[in-house]
């Protein structure tokens, strides 16, 4: 019998089902990236072409992040709770710094260079915001409060980083942070009537925002989504070519490495944000549904973990992260198949490169930590 206070015991208590789902998704991602670099009948030579560079790099990145994830999950949850506010504060300060001294990439200011490090503080906020909110609510609930004003305070905590990220401008990430934050507020029990009222307000305000609040290129993306055929060689090009790849995949797909659209460089960003086009083309409707099912399993498992936690900090942090996951997958696939306008959001664990894998794996680590500490009804007194 293993003693309960050892690391080994903790390991046996990990949520193995969720862990296996994650590993399966990342391995699938590596496989897809292998296909993205290779071709069964290369157009130049007609021969088999193999390029596993991206695939191997993706696997290494995942293995490294798997280590980080385990470390996050095995450290005490109380530690993460104590880091919630400082993390949030540092994130806001960094966002402010980006505003002042950030690097401009693709016309947008997102990166901060500190010595050899390049940071994207907006990415950090995807984790820091739900953690800070969870801790805030935990303390409020412990103090017996559940009035509307605590939700208003929570919303302000969300709105500050969202405003900064929106100004970079990075619509995709700001929507992610806003969505995650609102998710936590929703889970924290804000009255459904208020929710309905806000949704009504958003519906009314949407046209106003569309015409006055968006940049030209953002408006163009929305227009493109509605009618990609309007300008098949311009703005709608990527979308249309992506849909041709997806649609031509059919029920069972063209087969591994048999995708034709990727070879002619028709689809920009096909290895990153538009990776789903390769999945749908080569593995067909069936393959796409299997992958969606894997994500659904991960999300449901996350919700189960949120439900079994005895502390409200754990429950809310877990549900916040699950919201992030759902937004990632939903927005990415939604945009690739033409249900949502094109915003730069990758498909986590599958898209090549990017910082999404870091965010998502730290999030899974926290989810696992909540699971390991589910029986602990934490008191957060005495924390910073």
């Amino acid at each position, binding site marked *: 019998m293993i003693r309960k206070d050892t690391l080994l015991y903790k390991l046996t208590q990990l949520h193995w089902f969720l862990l296996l789902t994650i590993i399966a998704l990342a391995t699938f991602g590596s496989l897809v990236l292998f296909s993205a670099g290779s071709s069964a009948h290369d157009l*130049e030579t007609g021969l088999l072409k193999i390029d596993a560079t991206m695939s191997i790099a993706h696997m290494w990145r995942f293995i490294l992040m798997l280590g980080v994830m385990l470390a996050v999950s095995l450290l005490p949850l109380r530690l993460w709770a104590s880091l919630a506010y400082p993390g949030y504060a540092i994130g806001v300060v960094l966002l402010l710094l980006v505003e002042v001294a950030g690097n401009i990439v693709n016309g947008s200011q997102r990166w901060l260079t500190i010595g050899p490090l390049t940071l994207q503080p907006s990415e950090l906020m995807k984790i820091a915001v739900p953690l800070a909110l969870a801790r805030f609510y935990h303390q409020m609930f412990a103090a017996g409060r559940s009035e509307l004003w605590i939700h208003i305070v929570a919303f302000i905590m969300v709105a500050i980083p969202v405003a900064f990220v929106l100004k970079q401008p990075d619509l995709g990430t700001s929507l992610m942070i806003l969505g995650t934050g609102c998710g936590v507020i929703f*889970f924290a029990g804000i009255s459904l009537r208020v929710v309905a009222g806000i949704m009504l307000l958003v519906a009314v305000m949407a046209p106003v925002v569309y015409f006055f609040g968006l940049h030209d290129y953002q408006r163009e993306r929305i227009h493109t989504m509605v009618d990609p055929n309007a300008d098949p060689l311009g703005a709608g090009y990527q979308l249309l070519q992506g849909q041709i790849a997806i649609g031509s995949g*059919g029920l069972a797909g063209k087969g591994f490495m048999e995708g034709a659209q990727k070879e002619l460089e028709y689809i920009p960003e096909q290895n990153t944000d538009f990776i789903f086009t390769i999945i*749908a083309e080569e593995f067909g409707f069936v393959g*796409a549904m299997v992958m969606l099912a894997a994500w659904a399993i991960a999300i449901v498992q996350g919700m189960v973990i949120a439900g079994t936690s005895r502390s*409200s900090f754990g429950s809310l942090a877990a549900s916040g992260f699950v919201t992030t996951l759902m937004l990632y997958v939903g927005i990415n696939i939604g945009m690739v*198949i033409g*249900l949502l306008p094109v915003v730069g959001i990758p498909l986590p664990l599958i898209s090549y490169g990017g910082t999404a894998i870091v965010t998502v794996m730290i999030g899974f680590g926290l989810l696992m930590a909540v699971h390991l500490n589910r029986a602990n009804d934490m008191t957060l007194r005495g924390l910073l």
Partner: protein
Amino acid sequence: MNRDWKNLFPSRRMIFLGAGGVVLLGLTARLAELQLFRQAEFETKAREVRIKLEPAPPHRGTIYDRSGRELASSKRNFYVTLRPEVASQDRDLQKRRQEIGEVIERVGRLLRLSEAKKRTLLQDATTPPGHRDILIADDLTWEEFAQVNVMAPELAGISAEVGELRSYPLQAAFYHTIGYVQKANEADIQRMVEHELTVAGEAPDSPEGKARATAVRRLYKHPAMRVGKQGIEAYGELALKGDPGKVRLLQNATGRVIDRLPSEDLAGKPGADVVLSVDADLQNFAIQRFGSEAGSAVMIDVATGEVMCMVSTPAPDPNLFVSGIASAPYKALREDERNPLYHKAYDGVYNPGSTFKIVVAAAALETGAMDPEDTVPCSGKAWYYNRFYNCWKPEGHGTMNLRTGLKNSCDCYFYRAAERTGIEEIAKVAKRFGLGHRYELGITGGKAGVVPNNEWKLNHPRIKERWYPGDTISAGIGQGYVTATPFEMAVMIARAAGGAGMPDPHLIVNGLRVPDPTITPMGEFKPGVLELVRDGMLAVTEGGGTAAASGSLDPENKLPAPYTGARMAGKSGSAQVIGLDKYRDSRGRAISNDKLPWHLRDNALFVAYAPIDKPRYAVAVIVEHGVSGSRVGAPIARDLLAHALRTDPGARKAFVPKTRDIASADGAAQPT
């Protein structure tokens, strides 16, 4: 209350999961629509319409002479290409060879291609990478083009195109300076990739560097694209070439191009126009004047430093090279003993012979080693360091001073002058006259002649000896180690005529920046030195001088002012070809030059300027194996200078090309 929330939380989770279910349902429905219900539609689209981005070769910059005559321009080009993967999609190499071979055979019959050419094409078309166009033939007549166009629908993979091709309207006249363009080979592409990466400052393994390398590679593989192989075409490749645009090609299922889609944001930028200081009329006149002789002439405008003509003759027609020259005529060019492929004016190093006496005279006067009135006796030979050195006139000149020494080109006088001055001082003055320097003119090639001294000899990889006093004696008459290119000799005579104020020589006046910061300045000589040397050169073309017959440029006083009745001053030279020593009789006297085989005869040199009072044009002429500088070189120099004075090209300001109208998204791009 905490308890209230605990009761509320499960329902919130259910609402969330419900929303998630709706999202999943939405995604599934859309995927089903695309992949199940509209699969056929998308499959057709995927196969039928393909859009391919291809680089579009930009318009190459035109090269003009100083009057705006086109020396290198672009003409319309009808050409035919083959896309191998359209000609045959068979995966079996043998079958593919057969099918592609058939297409090449049929189009080859139409265009009367040789068997060898067809074999090369087939080899090319079946070697990976196959996903590119192969040039079948270009520079076609309209009739040939029309025929292929009519047949094209039956010939899979063949398409008839219209583009631009380089053309050299003056043919051989500027072969060596302008060079020519040709299809880029692997080495050219590699060179251009490295060059462009260096200019852009990108590492070859960085993502930007890789993208640039791919773009450069694809451009130079385009069937209508050429690369500068030598001359200005090669040196100025980056500027002349321009920036490639892109075309979007709409292809059908077989890869045939259905349509070209114009897109303004993808337009390229035409290359820069380049203007040379040379005058095509003078250049042509010089080439005609040389006739069948092999040689070189370089004329420089003393007032501006602009090169007026730069002739190396004979020369091939660069138009022969643009579409690839066959091996037999190329072999003939290579083996011609008159070296048509060799840029004699810029790459040819010759002993300057007696023309070097200008430098020795100036050095002797500058250092005070010789006084102008110091006399040297000449008996036909002189004794230095245990051996005799011969004068070119075996019976001797008698008593010589500086003026008569130059006038008669007396070797004995200059043996003495060199001995007294010493090689180090001669070398310094030679550098100040512009010798021993490779001039950066904006063309490929170019050599620096040798201005020898003790240090040079010690460091020379094959000699590695100290300087012997006897070496100085040979150097005194421009023999031995002293060498110069015709271009350097032209600078030497231009500086002798113009003095310290003469601007640095240059060939390009507009379109390319060609800095040459390492030119040795002439500097001021002691008062009277240059005047005495010029006076000596004037004596050369006066009665009794070595080139007395060529002195007057305007015997009938027909030239307009200020050139009316102009005369020239100059210096002849006849330089032995290396290895001639053994062609001497038992008494050490040279066998008469005219009786030697052509390639062993002396080179004939003449350097001159005109008019004598206010020098404007300076010219260096070398006639390879022409035997006598004064008999063969001087008349050519005289005629070139007379022609230059008659047409006075240096007085006309150089042509400035008009701004080209460019249809480009970012407005008219002005080449600099």
